[in-house]
């Protein structure tokens, strides 16, 4: 077998094992309170019969291993069970049905932010590396350092304050529904997307700059410079091809970060996404929803990191020509 294929397959296998381990952690965290969950929901005054009935109704009285296998096989097929809230009567609300439209909204927001942020930060990072220690580099550096140190909701509220309340260019709340037209949707997510763009551009740009500067110290770059070719050619033809691996890692890392940052940003803008849903579910202790959201977030996070690893394996020329 080709060594690259072998490494990729190994990495894929490792990713699957990680996913499995994470799903077990997510599942078993619920079991940390054996029997205590019903007590918590029903209150201290609940009779043992009531607790027993409650557990039986939710299927919590079966062994954990059985429940795990059932949960994960259903989850893989997109069925996350029924939400605890509103299951008191005969009406059952399927978690997947609640999540699906919100997942689309979150994906829409994250994709908008990523489409703007990735090219912008690569461009800024390369420029900063090219003209390092110039005033351009210094300004960009201090701005990004400050942005990184700020909580997302601070950046978000500054933007709301200035762009939505004072200048009235955007709406302070990004309420959308299933039948919002595409362009209207785009306009309404502009502000949350801008917030997330600012946060991840700061991270990504700094990492790109560091990766390029790291490369510029390599002997073959010195060689290229000594040959007398232009600065931009050194960067584009000699440094950049070797920088793809670290840059891919940076992009995936930041897209994974987008997954987490989305929670706070959605709450700020009251955007009906999966992050806001998870926060609501945490407050009402709606376990199936919390678990479903946690699994989706964690899986996205792991898969993006996996993707970064695979890209860096594939683009690494040293692995393509093994000795």
């Amino acid at each position, binding site marked *: 077998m080709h060594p690259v294929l072998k490494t990729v397959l190994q990495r894929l296998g490792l990713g699957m094992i990680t*996913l499995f381990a994470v799903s077990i952690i997510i599942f078993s965290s619920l079991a940390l309170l054996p029997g205590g969950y019903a007590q918590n929901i029903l209150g201290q005054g609940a009779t043992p019969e009531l607790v027993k009935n409650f557990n039986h109704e939710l299927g919590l009285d079966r062994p954990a291993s059985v429940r795990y296998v059932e949960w994960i096989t259903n989850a893989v097929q997109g069925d996350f069970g029924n939400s605890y809230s509103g299951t008191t009567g005969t009406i059952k609300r399927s978690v997947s049905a609640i999540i699906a439209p919100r997942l689309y909204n979150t994906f829409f927001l994250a994709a908008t932010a990523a489409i703007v942020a990735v090219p912008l930060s690569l461009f800024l990072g390369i420029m900063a590396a090219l003209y390092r220690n110039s005033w351009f580099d210094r300004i960009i550096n201090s701005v990004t350092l400050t942005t990184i140190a700020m*909580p997302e909701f601070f950046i978000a509220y500054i933007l709301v304050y200035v762009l939505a309340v004072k200048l009235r260019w955007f709406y302070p709340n990004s309420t959308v529904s299933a039948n919002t037209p595409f362009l209207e949707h785009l306009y309404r997510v502009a502000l949350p997307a801008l917030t997330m763009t600012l946060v991840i551009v700061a991270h990504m740009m700094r990492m790109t700059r560091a990766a390029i500067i790291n490369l510029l110290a390599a002997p073959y770059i010195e060689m290229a410079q000594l040959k007398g070719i232009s600065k931009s050619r050194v960067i584009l033809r000699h440094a950049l091809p070797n920088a793809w691996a670290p840059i891919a890692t940076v992009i995936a890392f930041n897209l994974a970060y987008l997954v*987490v940052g989305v*929670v706070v940003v959605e*709450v700020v803008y009251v955007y009906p996404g999966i992050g806001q849903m*998870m926060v609501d579910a*945490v407050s009402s202790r709606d*376990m199936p929803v919390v678990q479903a959201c*946690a699994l989706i977030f964690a899986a996205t996070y792991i898969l993006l990191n996996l993707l970064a690893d695979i890209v860096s394996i594939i683009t690494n020329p040293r692995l393509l020509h093994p000795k």
Partner: protein
Amino acid sequence: MSAIQLETRLIKGRRTLWQNIVRTLKASPNSARFGMIVMLIYALCAIFAPWIAPFPEADTSAKGMLPSSWTHIMGTDQTGHDFFSRLIFAARNTIGIALITALLSFFVGSTLGITAALQRGWFDQGVSRVVDAFLAIPVLIFALMMLSVIGKGVFNLIMILALLDATRVFRLARAVALNAVVMDYVESARLRGEGTRWIVFREIVPNILPPLITEFGLRFCFVFLTIAALSFLGVGIQPPSADWGSMVAENKSLISYGYALPLYPAFAIALLTVAVNLVVDWFLQRTSGLRDGK
């Protein structure tokens, strides 16, 4: 005779700790000085909050939504708390909890990390694999999930974040300790028959301290921001305790009416993280001799 004279002429008195501190501070760049001054002000606010703040933490005797005046410098919030006093008391709660969490995670993480580096074998393998699984979950998501399982509350918050952060500290502590364990000075200490305690505290720990201290600064920022985010989301520090994150959340509706009030606590959070980062940067440059840009 002359040799003794020469010796007395050459030997200078050792610098005292205080002299060393002054010397180091004099050489610090402006950014780090700014960071240290900000940190000092925050620390003073946190420690002396009851004496600095004009009103007690949970005082609601004033009317709600008062504009800023001489008695209430920043006005009052919806329930009639003096906003400025809450801001000062929040320094105590938010920073205090973040500090306890960071210290706890450091204690657990570095103890496990150094032990794993020393022991190797099954202990190292076991802990490392568990940590790997935990590292694959974003902290905020996991913290949200755990808080929904075991319930809100300061104690739970500290425990969960400390546990999650300890996994990150473990990774670093193990990596730097592994580099130190194979050093000749550790080997020679072992050969002269020193016990494990000596090897850990006199040989390994002093040598891995600089990266650990840097990491502590960054981890503190991270924990601090996570706590602020969780409080903002309503599952962190609970009222009536004053806290910057929840202060933003409680007053966020004011933004739509054009008041900048909710921005103040958010700014307080941002300023402290920037300050800590500046100091950490300086420390990093000093200890590693690393110069950005070469």
